[in-house]
């Protein structure tokens, strides 16, 4: 493998790993904030217990999301310095604003929330977690603005003298049409994860025979999680549908790759539910298709025409293949099987999570508790499915953009750091992979330990004003 492949693998590994934690952070912070402010409003003891319980699970997860995020910010300069030079004028701004507006907010107010019991007025304390949640949303907004520029470059011009992209309209970058639909899609996906985690964790406790008096609390949490999952799933479907049409418009090759559609279709293009064939698409062994559905998904009409990979490839080669060294590439085609399968898995696991949520709502109605043994497998799968769905979604989005770093403007092969040796990239790759592997084991064990312990017993919170000077801290590391 050369530097390019290594740097791409490294980006894939560190990004997918980082993004295992991000949706949990976004989704769970909202639910923790909900429970905490619900306690402040209604004084139901269970709400405070659940806020603390899910708050612990949240912080265990947040810690790892934060540290792996630091790697992300440094990686552009370390492995992709030519990309950073080329696009820094545009790409750097949302990144810097993300740190200034979102990271400070998240870190500072999470510290206040964790250590603030008995130190700050309770309404303000509950608000801290909401502020953390707003921070996660702001963070998502700015980083997705940067990413959307790579998918659909807007608000810039190419300076022929310096051979760099220059920002001309920052508002256009922040309101990129790809961004406007990607942001709600990603946030909905994060809520799906948050809902599924709460649902699965609470259901696990609900099924335990020894729970006894906590049954009501876990039942309500299970059902709230299921409702959040379903609503988020609906949001995902709607935004995903709009996204498909915009994607077909700005990145037709990505849609063709998602469908492994080699030949253009003049209308009534069938949607492939499952196709088994040779990897270059020349031979189809087995296929399940729905006539016209691809046309509808891509264009909104059943008779809309959809361009195929071969036609697009020829078109791109003609358009970008000569003259500009930044846009020359041998393939102009993403990895088709990867695009095809990640697209299907993304949708499939998302739908599976929604089906489980429906099933959970049905089986926990009244005072019913699903006791069958196979439920333990469902519970295990429930949070993992949408988390994987998020990964597949990103793999599809990013792999489908290839061979471009910035679509139509800069090919991936021209973005790597020229001064970095293969040995250095291999070293960092080995270090990250080993470290991330060890950390995954630690975090999962810790998460499960705290999950099993369940919600802590209710304890009347200390009032900020009347604290004894030598009383132990309400929270300490």
């Amino acid at each position: 493998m050369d530097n390019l492949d290594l740097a791409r693998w490294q980006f894939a590994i560190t990004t997918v790993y980082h993004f295992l934690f991000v949706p949990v952070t976004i989704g769970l912070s909202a639910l923790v904030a909900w429970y905490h402010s619900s306690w402040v409003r209604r004084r139901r003891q269970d709400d405070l217990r659940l806020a603390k319980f899910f708050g612990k699970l949240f912080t265990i997860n947040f810690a790892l999301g934060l540290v792996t995020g630091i790697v992300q910010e440094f990686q552009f300069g370390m492995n992709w310095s030519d990309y950073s030079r080329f696009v820094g004028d545009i790409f750097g701004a949302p990144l810097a604003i993300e740190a200034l507006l979102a990271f400070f907010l998240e870190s500072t107010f999470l510290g206040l929330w964790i250590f603030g019991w008995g130190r700050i007025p309770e309404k303000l304390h509950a608000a801290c977690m909401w502020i953390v949640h707003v921070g996660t949303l702001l963070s998502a907004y700015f980083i997705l603005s940067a990413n959307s520029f790579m998918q659909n470059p807007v608000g810039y011009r190419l300076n022929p003298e310096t051979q760099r992209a220059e920002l001309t309209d920052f508002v256009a970058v922040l309101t990129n049409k790809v961004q406007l639909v990607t942001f709600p899609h990603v946030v909905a996906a994060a809520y799906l994860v948050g809902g599924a985690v709460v649902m699965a964790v609470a259901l696990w406790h609900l099924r335990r025979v020894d729970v006894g008096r906590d049954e009501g609390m876990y039942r309500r949490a299970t059902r709230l999680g299921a409702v959040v999952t379903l609503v988020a799933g609906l949001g995902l479907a709607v935004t995903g549908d709009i996204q498909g049409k915009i994607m077909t418009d700005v990145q037709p090759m990505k849609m063709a790759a998602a469908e492994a559609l080699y030949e253009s279709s003049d209308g009534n293009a069938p949607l492939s539910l499952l196709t088994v064939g040779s990897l270059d698409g020349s031979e189809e062994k087995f296929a399940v298709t729905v006539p016209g559905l691809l046309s509808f998904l891509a264009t909104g009409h059943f008779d809309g025409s959809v361009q195929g990979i071969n036609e697009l490839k020829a078109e791109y080669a003609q358009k970008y293949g000569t003259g500009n060294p930044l846009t020359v590439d041998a393939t102009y085609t993403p990895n088709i099987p990867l695009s095809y399968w990640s697209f299907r898995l993304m949708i499939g696991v998302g739908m599976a999570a929604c089906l489980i949520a429906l099933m959970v709502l049905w089986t926990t109605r009244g005072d019913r508790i699903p006791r069958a043994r196979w439920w333990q497998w469902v519970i295990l799968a429930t949070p993992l499915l949408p988390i994987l769905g998020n990964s597949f979604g990103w793999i599809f989005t990013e792999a489908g953009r290839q061979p471009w770093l910035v679509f139509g403007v800069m090919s991936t092969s021209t973005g790597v750091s020229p001064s970095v040796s293969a040995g250095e990239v291999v070293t960092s790759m080995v270090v990250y992979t080993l470290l991330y592997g060890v950390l995954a084991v630690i975090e999962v064990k810790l998460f499960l330990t705290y999950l099993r312990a369940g919600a802590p017993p209710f304890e009347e919170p200390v009032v900020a004003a009347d604290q004894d000077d030598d009383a132990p801290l309400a929270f300490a590391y």
Partner: protein
Amino acid sequence: MELSTVWFIIIAVLWTGYFVLEGFDFGVGMLLPVLGRGKDAETTEKRRRVMINTIGPVWDGNEVWVLTAGGATFAAFPHWYATMFSAFYLPLLLILVALIVRNLGFDYRGKRDDAQWRARWDAAIIVGSAVSALLWGVALTNVVRGLPIDASKEFTGNLFTLLNPVSLLGGLVTVGLFLTHGALFVALKTTGPIRADARGIATRTGAVTAVLAVGLLAILGAADGNPGSWVTTVVAAGALVAALTANLRGREGWAFVGTFVTIAMAVATYFLLLFPDVMPSTLDTAWSLTTANASSTPYTLEIMTWVAVVFTPIVLLYQSWTYWVFRKRIGTQHIPAAGPTPTTPDAPTTTPTTTPSTTPSTGPSAPSPEPSVR
């Protein structure tokens, strides 16, 4: 003033913010084996927890300063960001690993009641803090002294180019400053024996650091000093002496302000030595990256300036408020007893406990009914 100059100053301010804030939590981390040692295992553990809890609510926010500095460099000086981060490839990798394990150490060490588990995370905190402190100093000193950068703005050296004596001295100075800064922070934030011990440590590390720092700044100043950098050098040295004097007199607040100013002035000196370059080339001065040839377009800088002008004060405001909220000194009596590990599902963690922890009868060292866990 040129906008690129404004951004040079903003980035200097961000690094200053990072070093004066995370500087002391690096120091606290490094001092764990020294200050966090008691006559028996139990006292040792309590002292360590007191130390970690002095920075508990704030270290995470402190660290964001470096992310903002990195992001701002990317936005305002893409060439600086690209050249610097690819040149410092392996040291940056080490710093990242160090920050990762150190941060998780704070978060995870108390999450299981297991001596070996805690010992491992303690090691992560100590080594992680020391390695980051040392390597940031090495890296920034290299930036100021210049690196072999060719005509296409690429670094042409290797790891050993970076490990030169002066830069290593720079690393030692940051370690020394952060140790002193951290010890004074512990002294300022604690009560009891640990406070007295912290003051003692600060005096010793401070004296050694003063000698090293003066040597370093003299070497760098002799190479390319200017009136401004000499002024800040003298202020830095004066502030360090003042800090040590205040510490000897038991004025911990003023002593901490002293090291705060020392570090801020040391960073200012570095950036004054650097300006108008951002990455001087040792091969040919024509190839140096400067504020002019490494910066973004005026349009980007203008937007970023507005964002910085509006939001930086807000960030400063709420971060200062955090320090105010957690202003009380803590001691071993404030550390909730017992390990906070949740027990197995069948153990009686779910039995109701309603004893409020606020009853005045709760003695100084009485355990809280249910130690909270994060």
